[in-house]
């Protein structure tokens, strides 16, 4: 899966452990908080909830923890729908319709300004 040889994989895992990004357990490897931060993920503990997150502010993460406070044993996985990309594309196309001109004109040759 990693396209690494066994010795190559072993070397990488050892380096990751030395950097503190991975922790070796009896059951396998665990990504440490430092490892998650290196991946751009953050972790907080608040209101008895551990939350791993990225792309939201710490305040938002704390509010999620507060909402989940007192819930019995649970696991939650969530991510945003990629509407941001659509918004950006539409906004850009309205200012810069050239991006869509070839599609509007079908396969007719684009007219370049000389």
């Amino acid at each position, binding site marked *: 899966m990693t396209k690494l040889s066994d010795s190559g994989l072993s070397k990488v895992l050892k380096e990751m452990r030395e950097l503190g990004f991975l922790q070796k357990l009896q059951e396998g490897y665990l990504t440490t908080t430092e490892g998650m931060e290196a991946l751009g993920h953050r972790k907080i503990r608040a209101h008895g909830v551990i939350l791993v997150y990225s*792309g*939201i*502010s710490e305040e938002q993460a704390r509010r999620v923890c507060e909402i989940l406070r007192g819930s019995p044993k649970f696991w939650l996985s969530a991510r*945003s*729908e990629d*509407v*941001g990309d*659509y*918004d*950006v*594309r*539409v*906004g*850009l*196309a*309205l*200012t*810069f*319709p*050239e*991006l*869509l*001109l*070839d*599609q*509007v*004109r079908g396969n007719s040759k*684009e*007219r*370049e*300004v000389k």
Partner: protein
Amino acid sequence: MDLSIRSSFKVGERASFVETSMSKEGNLISTLHALNLDLDNLRVGVSASTDPEGRLRRFMLTVIQPQDQENVVVSYILDLTSRKLTITEGRARRLEVKEEDRAKVISQLPNLISSMRQGPLTSFRSRVFNLDTGAEETT
């Protein structure tokens, strides 16, 4: 994702307003409010996207300036959800854009946007900044 045009009109000769809404399975997800200005030798677009409750989620400023045979395109995207500012600078071949082309792009936007191509863009690069720390993030 379904895109529909809620409103589209010209404001005088050099400005236009377009409002679009994005929905999925009948549920409104996002609304985009966009004002475009054609100034002397400069095109400016400002747009804001709001969530279904009308809260501002994203603000975008795009400036297009012709230079020689190319257009220089700069966009600033202020994303209040992910707390990031993305600045993209690019260059594009200059193409002739007629008023009828622009009108067609707007009217056909729902069918075109999902397969938007790179068009005349020849190069672009993005820089991302964290809104809380000001630090530039590696992308």
